[in-house]
């Protein structure tokens, strides 16, 4: 193998200019165009066995005969993005993309692709729309349509090695700011970029920094990495794949605001992120890029990691700060903003992981450069985690303003199994469901709010026709009942009652007036609750009632669930005209409720059926009907 960059000793920097020299030195020893095998070891690929694949590749590369060819480096990286097709392996510099790689495929990859340059058709990505296969990353629409600014390093670097990040430009923004910018200039640049907070509320980052800097006292920089929305993993991927972009952003915020102390509040469920961050902070401190006397300029910034205890409400800023102080994580009932009195009653600047990850590039390239991405009111790009009933599940970064249709059908590859699109749920439990008629609206802060949802932190759950909207509302309400802090009456009591009514409706015991009561409770909670969680807790119910009122009515009046989700409200039946008698359902049924001869229409015994959906989901001819 070529000389590993890990063997280059760290040398502390004493001038901002030394960083560039250090970087050139690294690059001279490690050609960026040299062959590399990148294995995704992100949260999606690890459970499907990417670590085993990586070990196997490492072994095979050592054992193979290279005959004078450059031996490729093997790297375990952060999330590559296309999580549903994992484990993913990318071969650089050609950009060959292999999906669903198993350890037994490894000898073939080394033999054919690495040694002889042949492609392996079996492991290529198949486009669900055109049925074509694509062998290179750039040809896959999922990647081709993205603009990767925040995610530029993820999947290319080893998150545990700072040198890898430095070779791709990490900390040069900080070096630039330290050598040639005043704090005010940094803030102006961020203001000019039009960057808005990526945590959900979308408050202007520059304005927030400016007002925090205007209050006297010991100021704190806090990063909110308590990502709790169901189905969201953007911040996790960032922290696990490229921790230095966040650390650099925080250091720049500290420089702009005049702070010397920072905290990363990472949620308990992200142990790998804590590892990458701990290692990242240690290495950066050794190089003099964080800690005391950064790059010899006299600027100090010390960072520590604080782990949450698994409470969703601690993603709310004041609850997070209470928790950080060691108190119970409940939102504070104060009308004084945290930029004035936050952590320890001192001015505190709290931003989301993704917000910080955007900062360094804005400083390097200027605010105007950033403003050119996205729309007028929402500048830049946004990372989404695209999940649900969709072909390409994964991590996506797009410029603000792309349409929902493009997200779902082009990047997402459409809905699998010939099902119809029904709605897309954005913004997590505080967000809402956006129905089909709004598929062409641009994804931006204002436009999503206009249709009754929010941008949120970037979770995007696509729902197909088999999703029951009442059940979706019930699911999110149940989540909020468990996660509400319980101190204010509207949120606590209102949610209990909402869940009570929704449970009743999904059991077929809905009553006239239930929809009105739900709406009344929802609007009341929006007006009267204490924190952001409470004021938005009615959104899942309100937005589903707004766009899918008939579905609620069918549940209540006809006692039917048209989507076939609420078990007491539907039955399965086999359409004798469509059934080909293939026997797939008969074999899959766990309670033997389906009987029939081969190649003749089957029948179903409703008394035995437990409505497990096994037959319905697996019928290739859509012969199972919901009645």
């Amino acid at each position, binding site marked *: 193998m070529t000389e590993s960059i890990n063997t280059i000793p760290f040398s502390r920097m004493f001038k901002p200019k030394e960083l560039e020299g250090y970087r050139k030195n690294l690059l001279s020893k490690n050609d960026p165009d040299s062959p590399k095998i990148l294995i995704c070891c992100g949260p999606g690929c690890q459970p499907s066995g990417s670590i085993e694949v990586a070990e196997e590749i490492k072994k095979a590369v050592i054992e193979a005969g290279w005959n004078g060819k450059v031996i490729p480096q093997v790297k375990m990286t952060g999330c590559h993005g296309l999580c549903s097709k994992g484990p993913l392996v990318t071969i650089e510099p050609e950009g060959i993309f292999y999906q669903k790689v198993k350890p037994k495929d490894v000898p073939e990859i080394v033999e054919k692709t690495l040694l002889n340059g042949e492609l392996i058709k079996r492991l290529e990505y198949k486009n669900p729309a055109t049925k074509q296969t694509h062998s290179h990353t750039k040809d896959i629409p999922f990647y081709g349509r993205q603009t990767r600014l925040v995610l530029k390093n993820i999947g290319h670097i080893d998150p545990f090695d700072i040198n890898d990040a430095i070779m791709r430009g990490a900390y040069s923004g900080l070096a630039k700011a330290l050598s040639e910018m005043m704090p005010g200039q940094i803030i102006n640049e961020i203001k000019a970029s039009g960057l808005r907070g990526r945590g959900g509320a979308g408050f202007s980052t520059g304005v927030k920094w400016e007002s925090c800097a205007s209050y006297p006292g010991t100021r704190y920089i806090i990063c909110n990495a308590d990502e709790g929305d169901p189905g969201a993993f953007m911040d996790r991927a960032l922290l696990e794949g490229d921790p230095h972009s966040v650390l650099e952003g925080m250091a720049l915020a500290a420089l702009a605001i005049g702070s010397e102390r920072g905290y990363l509040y990472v949620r308990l469920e992200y142990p790998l992120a804590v590892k990458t961050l701990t290692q990242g902070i240690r290495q950066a401190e050794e190089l003099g890029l964080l800690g005391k006397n950064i790059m010899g300029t006299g600027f100090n910034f010390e960072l520590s990691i604080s782990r949450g205890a698994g409470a969703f409400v601690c993603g709310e800023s004041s609850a997070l700060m209470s928790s950080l102080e060691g108190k119970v994580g409940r939102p504070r009932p104060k009308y004084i903003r945290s930029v004035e009195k936050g952590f320890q009653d001192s001015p505190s600047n709290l931003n989301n992981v993704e917000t910080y990850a955007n900062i360094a590039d804005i400083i390097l390239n200027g605010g105007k450069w950033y403003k050119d991405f996205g729309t007028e009111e929402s500048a830049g790009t946004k990372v989404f985690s695209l999940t649900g009933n969709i072909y390409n599940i994964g991590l996506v970064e797009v410029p603000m303003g792309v349409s929902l249709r493009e997200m779902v059908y082009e990047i997402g590859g459409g809905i699998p199994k010939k099902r119809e699109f029904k709605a897309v749920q954005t913004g997590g439990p505080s967000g809402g469901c956006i129905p089909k008629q709004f598929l062409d609206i641009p994804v931006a802060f204002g436009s999503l709010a206009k249709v009754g949802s929010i941008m949120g932190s970037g979770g995007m759950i696509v729902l197909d026709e088999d999703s029951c909207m009442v059940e979706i509302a019930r699911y999110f309400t149940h989540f909020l009942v468990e996660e509400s802090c319980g101190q204010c009456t*509207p949120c*606590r009591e209102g949610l209990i009652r909402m869940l009570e009514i929704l449970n009743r409706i999904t059991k077929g015991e809905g009553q006239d007036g239930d929809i009105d009561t739900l709406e009344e409770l929802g609007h009341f909670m929006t007006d009267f609750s204490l924190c952001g969680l409470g004021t938005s807790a009615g959104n899942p119910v309100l937005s589903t009632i707004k766009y899918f009122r008939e579905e609620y009515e069918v549940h209540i009046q006809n006692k039917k669930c048209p989507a076939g989700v609420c078990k007491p409200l539907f039955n399965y039946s086999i359409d004798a005209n469509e059934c080909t008698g293939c026997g797939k359902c008969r074999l899959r049924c766990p309670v033997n409720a389906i009987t029939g001869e081969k190649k003749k229409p089957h029948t179903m015994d409703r008394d035995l059926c437990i409505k497990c959906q096994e037959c319905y989901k697996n019928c290739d001819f859509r012969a199972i009907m919901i009645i």
Partner: protein
Amino acid sequence: MKTLKIILNGKETTAKPDQTILEVATENGVFIPTLCHSTALEPAAMCRLCMVELTEGRRSKFVTSCNYPLRQDAEIKTDTEVIRHGRKMIIELLMARCPDSEELKKLAGEYSANITRFAPLNDDCVVCGLCARVCEKVGGKTLTLSGRGVHIKVNTAFGEASPYCIGCGACVQICPVNAIKIEDIESERVITIHGREAARIKLNHCDVCDKYYGPVIDLTKVMERLGEKTIPPPNLNLCPGCARQKLGKRIADRYYDVY
């Protein structure tokens, strides 16, 4: 100091900066209902009953009056239709939790709340948190709000009878729905919350009248708070009544000598 111009329910008045809306309203004789507020404690804004409509500049919003600090000229409406409706909802929801509370019944009548809309939960606590807050300030820091979301409740540490309770009874006195019981049984004082014993404190025994009175308290903490170094030598074990009698007798004896 600068004074702020406030329009309260259409009438002009003034306020000092950082004064809360509730204070201004009380000064002007405008009643705003509250459940979780006490002038002795920091506002918690938990019950949300004191919500009012506030217009500062061009923006209008709903805020809790107990803790909103006025910093600029503002218009306040304490009794609009939305506010009344919201209060009605709060009362309905709390009534469903504690159907037997007299305090809530009174409010329900005032806001014509539909008290049968939601199925009763048969609890007796409205989770206003006053007892926990007063215990932190006055008592032995015994009570707290434990649990999250729907499971939140007033509790002692680990749900066990607390050895730190000083039996001051502040929690009993402050509870707006009288959900905490205090009882002197024989030689002990028992505090009951949610039908469960929260603390049991020994009572002093009066040497003169042979009755039990006030709780036995370790005074070290009290002396620390008072800044005194030593605990004064204990008086005779006398109940307040007997002590008064004894003092009266001493005074009478002294004056008797003079005349």
